[in-house]
Each structure stands twice: as structure tokens, then as C-alpha cells.
């Protein structure tokens, strides 16, 4: 039987088909050859390797679970998840790049766009010719996006957008932004705003200590006039952006397992060759406990997330399933990254090793796309029937 090219303590390979495994193997090979050798220089410089956009497109990694009709690969959600796992094994910034493009821009255009929007945008986004970003979060509205201030006012055949978005992955390098704004009735709607539109600015946010190999920016909309047909016709209300986030969070569920695996594999290797007191540190009970806890948590996350994928393919996945997965997996990955760093000792603080870079990245992942706290409250609301945060 073909096998996953990753830690697989409970033989989850046997729960996957040949195609899913071939896709995982391919994605791992690709990341190891094309991305891992250059990630550190970009992390130090605070840049994203932009020439990879076309290579990612060629491989089919953008919106891979969308239909072939629009130039996508049409793979199932398990295989899609395994790609996210392998991209994030490289760096959370790489997975974020693909997540935003696929789940937050291509997916909503596919789900809520007009046929002409789909035919025009999806193939260009799939190939990497165009880069997209997703504008929902605002400086004063993070966990509570329903309070957004950004407005869209109809004016003849146009909409005029005003407002500001913040913490937007890829905004400074995007060709197209999906902006969520309230119309004159206070209803949230989605608008496609192309770069070059007067009144559309995307300053980069500097000084990040996390996700450094990923570009983050603001979006400033100052009387930004767009054609009325740039509105996504198929959705009204906050469930639009929230449904996109469910897609992206699904990818995070898988992605962070990849980051955890990278740290576990690094710590395991290191512990077997690092000698202290005349024996490898892997021989010490404290190290073995750390490593055992890591593989235990990775294995649990693998099985949890595989079931999540099966639910998604069966179209029975609910947003609270994704919330529970994100709660478990991101915290698990962050714990493993920190624990791996302790096994690496002083070596663990230099960027020759991956664990601290992953730990730093995972601080962002713990917070973005719904904070750990919000997902806890979503699960709480689901089991008690009482919302702790809705007014």
C-alpha cells in the first residue's frame, strides 16, 4: 500500500486512497525542494517569495478543491487538507498565502459570484496570474465583524466604498480585494475591488515578529468607486464572510498539523544525535516524555481532522466542527513547537532550526481566523444553546 510521507503512528495511510497519498507525497516533495531552501532568507527579510505564485499555480495548489471547469484540480477535501498540511510544514506564511487565495477569494467567487465573475477570476487566481486578498477585519472590529464601519453606497451603475480594513494577508501584493462592507440598509455584502481603482490603498504593516514570510497590510477605501457588477450577487449578510472563514479554518485545521510534524521530526532527530552525559538526550526520560506527548497529540489531531474532512466531503460538516478542530489543532501545534524548541536547547533559538519559527508563526494562527477564545465560545454555544458573545 502507498504510504504518507509523514509521521503516521496509527497508520492513517490505510484510511486514505492512493490518490490522496500521492498528492501528499508530491506536495511534501515540492515544499522540500522549492520552498524550504529559501524560507529563512524571506523570514529574515520579511518578504514572501513572489515567484512561487506561478509554481504554486502550476502545481494546482490554489483552490485545489474547486471544479476543473474553472481551471482548478477538483480534488476532494482530504487531499486538499493534506496539501495545506505540507505547505504549513514549510511555513505558516506559505499556507496562509494559499489559504487566502483559495478559500477566501476563489471559494466565495465560486460560491456567490456571477457566472462572468467566476469565468474571469477563478482561472486567473488558480494559475497565480492574479493574487487576491480578503478584507473583513477592521481596526476596531476583529472578533465582532458584524460591527464593521466600512460602507458601500449605490450611485447609479457604481458602488462607492469607504472604510478601512486591517490585518489583511497579501493586501499589499494583491491584484484584487474581496471587500466586505455594509450597504445602505446595514446589510453586509461582498465587493471585488481591483488594484488601480482610485481611492484604493494597501499600506504594508511592518514590525511583525510572527508570520514574517507573509505580507500583511491594511486596505484603505476612500470614495473608491467600483462598477455595480463587481458585487457578489449570491450572498447577503454576515454569513457570507463567515462561510468563507469556515473554508479557510478547515485548511488551518490541516495546516498546523504540518507545522507540528516539522517540529516533532526536528526534535526527534536532534535528540537522537545530541550527546550529553555520554548518551543521546533521547535516552533521558524527560525528553522521551516530550516526544511521546508530541506524537500522541499529532496522532489525535490527524484522526480528528481526517474525520472533519470526511464530514466536509459528505457535506455534513458544521462550523462548530471546524471550531473544535481549530481549537485543538492550533494549540497542539503551538505546544509542540515550544516543546520541540526546549529539546533543541540553545540551538533552538537560531533560524537554522525550524521549531521557533513555527512557534512564532503559530502565535498568529492561534489568533487569526477566529481566536482560540472565540472558537471555545462557539463550541460552548453549540453544547449549551446559550451564546456567551452574541448581543
Amino acid at each position, binding site marked *: 500500500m502507498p504510504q504518507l510521507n509523514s509521521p503516521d503512528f496509527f497508520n492513517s495511510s490505510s484510511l486514505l486512497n492512493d490518490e490522496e497519498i*500521492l498528492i501528499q507525497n508530491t506536495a511534501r*516533495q515540492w515544499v522540500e525542494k522549492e520552498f524550504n531552501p529559501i524560507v529563512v532568507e524571506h523570514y529574515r527579510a520579511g518578504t514572501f517569495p513572489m515567484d512561487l505564485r506561478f509554481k504554486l499555480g502550476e*502545481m494546482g495548489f490554489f483552490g485545489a478543491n474547486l471544479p476543473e471547469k474553472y481551471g482548478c484540480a477538483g480534488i476532494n477535501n482530504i487531499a486538499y487538507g493534506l496539501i495545506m498540511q505540507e505547505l504549513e510544514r514549510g511555513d505558516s506564511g506559505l499556507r496562509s498565502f494559499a489559504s487566502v487565495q483559495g478559500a477566501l477569494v476563489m471559494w466565495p467567487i465560486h460560491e456567490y459570484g456571477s457566472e462572468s465573475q467566476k469565468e474571469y477570476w477563478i482561472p486567473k487566481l488558480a494559475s497565480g496570474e492574479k493574487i487576491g486578498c480578503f478584507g473583513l477585519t477592521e481596526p476596531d472590529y476583529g472578533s465582532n465583524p458584524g460591527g464593521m464601519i466600512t460602507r458601500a453606497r449605490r450611485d447609479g451603475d457604481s458602488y462607492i466604498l469607504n472604510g478601512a480594513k486591517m490585518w489583511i494577508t497579501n493586501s499589499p501584493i494583491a491584484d484584487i480585494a474581496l471587500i466586505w462592507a455594509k450597504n445602505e440598509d446595514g446589510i453586509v455584502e461582498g465587493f471585488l475591488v481591483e488594484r488601480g481603482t482610485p481611492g484604493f490603498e494597501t499600506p504594508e504593516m511592518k514590525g511583525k515578529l510572527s508570520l514574517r514570510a507573509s505580507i500583511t497590510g491594511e486596505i484603505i477605501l476612500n470614495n473608491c468607486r467600483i462598477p455595480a457588477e463587481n458585487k457578489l450577487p449570491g450572498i447577503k449578510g454576515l454569513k457570507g464572510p463567515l462561510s468563507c472563514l469556515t473554508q479557510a479554518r478547515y485548511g488551518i485545521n490541516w495546516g498546523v498539523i504540518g507545522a507540528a510534524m516539522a517540529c516533532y521530526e526536528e526534535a526527534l532527530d536532534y535528540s537522537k544525535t545530541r550527546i550529553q552525559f555520554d548518551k543521546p538526550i533521547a535516552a533521558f526520560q524527560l525528553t522521551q516524555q516530550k516526544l511521546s506527548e508530541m506524537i500522541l497529540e499529532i496522532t489525535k489531531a490527524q484522526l480528528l481532522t481526517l474525520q472533519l474532512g470526511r464530514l466536509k466531503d459528505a457535506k455534513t460538516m458544521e462550523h462548530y466542527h471546524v471550531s473544535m478542530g481549530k481549537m485543538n489543532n492550533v494549540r497542539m501545534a503551538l505546544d509542540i513547537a515550544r516543546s520541540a524548541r526546549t529539546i533543541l536547547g540553545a540551538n533552538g533559538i537560531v533560524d537554522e532550526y525550524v521549531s521557533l519559527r513555527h512557534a512564532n508563526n503559530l502565535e498568529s494562527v492561534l489568533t487569526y481566523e477566529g481566536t482560540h477564545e472565540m472558537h471555545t465560545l462557539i463550541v460552548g454555544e453549540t453544547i449549551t444553546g446559550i451564546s456567551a458573545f452574541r448581543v
Partner: protein
Amino acid sequence: MKIVVCIKHVPDTETKIVIVDDGKSINSNGVKYILNPYDEYAVEEALQIKEANEESEVVAISVGDDSTQSSIRSALAMGVDRGTLLKTGNFALVDPFSVAKILAEEIKLESPDIILTGKMSIDAYGSQVPGLIAELLELPVVNLARDIVLSEGKATVKRDIEGGSETLITTLPAVISAEKGLNNPRYPALKGIMQAKKKPLEIKEINLDETDVEIIELTYPKQKPAGRIVGNSADAAVELVKLLRQEAKVI
């Protein structure tokens, strides 16, 4: 132009091999198998020839068991048009001559313009199959190709030799085996992987004749002996040089 590529399903180099109790075969449970890396160069070369010559077809042929299908699918995902599995009972025990005979019979049916293989498989290190196929088909063979140019029914092949390289020209059809560096094999893109499912993979049951060569024993490589520390002071350098010269005989 029709191109046949002969491929093999082999254990990944990073796999830990376990010899089973009979001492003649390995335990394939938990072993990760891949498309032989040298055969990947052959597949890539075939695809490049196909891309440069309209109406070409690339066929991958492999001798193996059911699990071999995954390596054929990998080749299909890279862009090979169809595959044939020549399925044998106990694949692990098949000797190179038997493999070559089975392959040659199948290649005859395909009557290709060119036959490409890897220079060897990374599990058995036999390097015999390309030459044996060529002999059985009465075709020329060129091994260890680093560059292949086709024109007017001939192939110009560059290969490395001791201290330099040599360029040969051969009539076609011919068997050419690929050396590392012939090209840069492509990754199977997702679309290719999805299309591979729909491509034909024919399975033919093969009855093996008695083989002339059989494996008597498999053993693990010798364990490296533990290192020895000669001393910690500057004087130890003298002792070390002496031992390297007289005992280890490496300088």
C-alpha cells in the same frame, strides 16, 4: 512517435529494510515504495520527446505485483498516456533476465520508436535490464545517457565517460538508459494526478518460467565499529597520524 518507458516500483531510499526469516526477501509491510528515481528521468525524457513531436504516445510498462500500480499511476500523473502492469506472483524473487524477457515480449507488441529505462533500480543495483531487453529485441543499446537528441530516425546520445564525455549516434528503435542529470523530472501536478485516474492501466497476468538465477541470501551491511579516541592533548595528534597511516592505512 511511440515511446515505451520501462519502470520499476522500488522501496524508498529512506525506508528501513527488514529481511524476513527465509533470509531471501524483505518484509514489504510498512515499507514505502516509490517510482525508481532513475526511471523518473526516463519518464521525463519520454514526456519531453512527446512534447516536441506531435501525435506521440508514451507507454509505461512495469513488471511487478498489484502494489506496483501506484508507481505506474505516478508516471501517468506526470503525463504518461497509458500503463501496462505485467503482473507476476512473487515479484521479489524475479531475476533480471526473466524481467527482461517479460518486458521484451510486451515491447514487441507495442513496437515503439524508442525504449527508455533508468540506468538501474535503486533496490537491486543490477543494471542488467536495458542491455538484456536490447539483446532480446535485437536492438542497439546506449547506457547512462546525459543528453538525448532525436532527428531523422536517429538518436544522438551524450554520456559521461572517465575523464570526459562521449557522443554516440544510434539508429532507432534503440534502448537508452537514463543517468542522473539527463533532465529535471517534473512534479505530477494535481491536474495530472486527477487525470491519471482516468488513463488506461492494463493488467496482464504473467506466468514465470523457472529462473536461472536465484537469490540465496540477503544480509544487512556490516555495522560500523565504534570510534576510538586517541587522546586529548596535542601529543595525540602524532599518535593519530601514526594510526591513520599504519593501522587504518588511509594516509
